[in-house]
């Protein structure tokens, strides 16, 4: 595992061509990945700012820095941006685009132009949904779930926001379609399915969920638009429609969407842990199967968001049972990751710290999910801060931390530069402490009965809100430090070897940053993924 392997190819890197047009018209999967990264980090920072303002408002009781309409718009936009513009495309659009073809030994994805189109759809969706800020009667105030009939009655610009999300959904479908075809058609010689690294596997499972679940969101949002424009009546109780049907359709997509968010994150963790333990992954097959299992069972549990909605008792019991089943593949993954540390040679670099924190935080997220699956408790904690806390543990402690882990892990490969390791660790510690102070307090508040989406709170919740807000400051300080560190790293002139961490997947065999064509000669694979010992694969 030499960390100083020399550049295996003299070809110019994919950054070689300059000019705006070379970026905006590119069909290179790596450049599209970078485009996604830039746009998504921007959306993340904006969404984070919204969150900071919400926490500030909750620092005191009663109206202080904003009016209820502003607050309601903030939590809606925070949700829409973080979910549809950050975590759903998240790892698959950034790292999937950049690394999937390289990791399976291909020169690009199956449909490069479609790939670019998908980025444009994503950006126009973002533009359309954010344009609701400035058009009509202001940004939507419904919450990101757009529940009917309020979303049909409110005078705010729900139509625009929903149309934006529709476009983003379309972009997500195209990415999924592209990845499936890529993995079926473009794996290099010798790379059979069971030799494929786990990140591509996770993307494969994700892609199927994207392809099969997103259309439901599409039609649901389309119907919301039609309702608002033409009063079709399908969701509107004053015409005869059933608001619960909306919830079914919405969660039929939006629950699997949670797995669209978390699966690639799990995939990235499955890459990082073996690399820094310097040994093969424990239970490769189990992780592959659990990825597919999560994708399959995860699509069957949506109605656990609706236990108090007045569904039939049969449906309630069925969905509660299925919900507990989906916890199993996640547990299997956690066990396998931890077992991968056994008899390894563990190096605690910043990506590894984020990855281990992921395991801890995701476990809390997953375990708090069990409370909600249990019917009796669900009645109590549904629609409270407990859900908000749980969701942030899974989506931020899970996907968010995995995203940062992946970013620190693949950063040298993507940019051919390096961030400051020491600053990265300081930032990590701040984020980790702030995160837990913020969201663990949310769990407690929820158990005490603090409902979500409240502009104001009762006196008995006040202490909790103060702690949470202080946590948000610590976390944001860490996040900003992390971003500054990563941006500063881009300007530090260093040469990065092809394989700085000692990884064994194909992306570490190409130079950093990779050449335009990825590979001069397509590699031929002759052994399973993650063969570290006894023979360490050196770059060809």
């Amino acid at each position, binding site marked *: 595992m030499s960390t100083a392997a020399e550049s295996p190819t003299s070809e110019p890197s994919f950054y070689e061509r300059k000019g705006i047009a070379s970026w905006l018209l590119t069909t290179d999967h790596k450049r599209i990945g970078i485009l996604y990264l830039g746009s998504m980090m921007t959306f993340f920072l904006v969404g984070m700012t919204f969150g900071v303002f919400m926490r500030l408002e909750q620092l005191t009781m009663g109206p202080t820095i904003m009016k*209820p*309409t502003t607050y309601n718009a903030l939590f809606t936009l925070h949700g829409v941006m973080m979910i549809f513009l950050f975590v759903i495309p998240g790892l698959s659009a950034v790292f999937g685009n950049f690394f999937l073809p390289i990791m399976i030994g291909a020169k690009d994805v199956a449909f490069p132009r479609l790939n670019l189109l998908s980025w444009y759809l994503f950006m126009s969706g973002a533009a359309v949904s954010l344009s609701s800020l400035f058009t009509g009667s202001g940004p939507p105030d*419904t*919450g990101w779930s757009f529940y009917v*009939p*309020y979303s049909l009655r409110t*005078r705010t610009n729900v139509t625009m926001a929903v149309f934006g999300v529709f476009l983003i959904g379309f972009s997500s479908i195209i990415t999924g379609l592209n990845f499936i075809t890529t993995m079926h058609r473009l794996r290099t010689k010798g790379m059979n399915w069971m030799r494929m690294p786990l990140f591509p596997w996770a993307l494969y499972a994700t892609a199927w969920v994207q392809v099969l679940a997103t259309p439901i969101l599409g039609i649901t949002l389309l119907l919301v638009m039609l309702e608002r424009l033409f009063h079709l009546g399908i969701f509107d*109780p*004053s015409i005869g429609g059933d*608001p*619960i049907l909306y919830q079914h359709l919405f969660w039929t997509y939006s629950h699997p969407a949670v797995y669209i968010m978390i699966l690639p994150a799990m995939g990235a963790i499955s890459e990082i842990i073996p690399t820094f*333990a*310097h*040994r*093969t992954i*424990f*239970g*490769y*097959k*189990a992780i592959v199967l659990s990825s597919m299992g999560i994708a399959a069972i995860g699509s069957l549990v949506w109605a656990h968001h609706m236990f*108090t909605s*007045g569904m039939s*008792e049969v449906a309630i019991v069925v969905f*509660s*049972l299925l919900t*507990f*089943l989906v*916890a*199993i593949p996640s547990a*299997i993954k956690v*066990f396998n990751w*931890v077992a991968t*540390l*056994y*008899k*390894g*040679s*563990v190096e*605690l670099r910043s990506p590894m710290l984020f990855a*281990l924190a992921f*395991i*801890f935080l995701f*476990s809390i997220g997953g*375990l708090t999910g*069990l*409370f909600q699956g249990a*019917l009796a*408790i669900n*009645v*109590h904690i*549904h*629609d409270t801060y407990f859900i908000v806390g749980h969701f942030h543990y899974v989506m931020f402690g899970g996907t968010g931390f995995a995203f940062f882990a992946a970013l620190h892990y693949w950063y040298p490969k993507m940019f051919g530069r390096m961030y400051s390791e020491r600053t990265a660790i300081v930032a990590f510690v701040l984020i980790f402490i702030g995160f837990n102070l913020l969201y663990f307090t949310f769990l407690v508040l929820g158990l*005490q*009965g603090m*409902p979500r989406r*409240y*502009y*104001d709170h*009762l006196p008995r919740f006040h202490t909790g809100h103060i702690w949470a807000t202080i946590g948000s400051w610590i976390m944001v300080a860490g996040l900003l430090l992390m971003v500054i560190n990563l941006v500063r790293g881009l300007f530090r002139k260093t040469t990065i070897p092809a394989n700085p961490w000692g990884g064994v997947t194909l992306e570490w065999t190409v130079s950093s940053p990779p050449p335009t064509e990825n590979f001069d000669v397509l590699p031929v694979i002759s052994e399973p993924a993650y063969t570290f*010992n006894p023979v360490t694969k050196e770059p060809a």
Partner: protein
Amino acid sequence: MFGGASSFSGKVDAVFLYIAALTIAFLVFITFVMIYLVIRYRRGKGGKAQDIHGHLLLELVWTGIPLVLFLTMFYYGWTNYRYLREVPRDAMVVQVTARQWAWSFTYPNGRQTSELYVALGRPVRLDLKSLDVLHGFYVPAFRVKADVVPGKNNYTWFQAEQLGDFDIECTVMCGVNHSYMLSKVHVIAEQDFSAWYFGDSDVPVLSQAGPAGAPDPARGERIFKLKGCVACHSTDGSKLVGPTWKGLFGSQVTVLTDGKEVTLTADDDYIARSIHHPPKEVVKGFAPQMPKADLSDRDVADLVAYIKFLP
């Protein structure tokens, strides 16, 4: 948590404790093992890493044990939940009406209130009805929650087991004043409840829609509280979602009609128009958010009388 204010609280808390014990044990275990392995096999120690590809028996064990534990959680959660769906026959039925942004409660004898009064130890069935959008009826102390869905009548029930006042909160985002859609449950002793229930201190108003007599400001005030006007209009001059009613009558107001600004005097006619067709004339500086209320002419007259009565 762990207050036990209703007969359902204990059942929820028992399941909570069961799952909490298991999950905390799991979390501590996995974290401990993780930290131990990181330290034991750290890079600097010089141990050689080994490729261990997996262990079928281990995989089966850590699939099987969680499966069994999860199923017990499911079962325990479900059996205790069933209690909430089986309403005792002798329960008193109270009709709960939710609107943006207020609750009202109608008792079997027609009495209407904006806060819920119940007798200690007596089961109460709540039939939930929404006049506009989704709401959520939630009493944290009782661990009871149910969505209030327009066009569909949901129900829930509870049996209070502790004297005192408990918060009612709306849990489904329902608009600007969602976080102020609060009320209280007053749990009082059986004999106090009977006295209140059969007493005449607070006469039910809306069942009395008799012939119009002289407008009655006192009745207007009750409508003001019961029909949710109070959620958006203050009577002390403070600015809420809608304009305050203090000093409203006879004052000059600037309204937007079809996009034009018009200044007019707030008289009986104007107030009645505003109640019947809220979006027609919206006071400048306020959003057109007022819902249409189902009020009779007499109700409106009484409300106007109440507004006149205000200083």
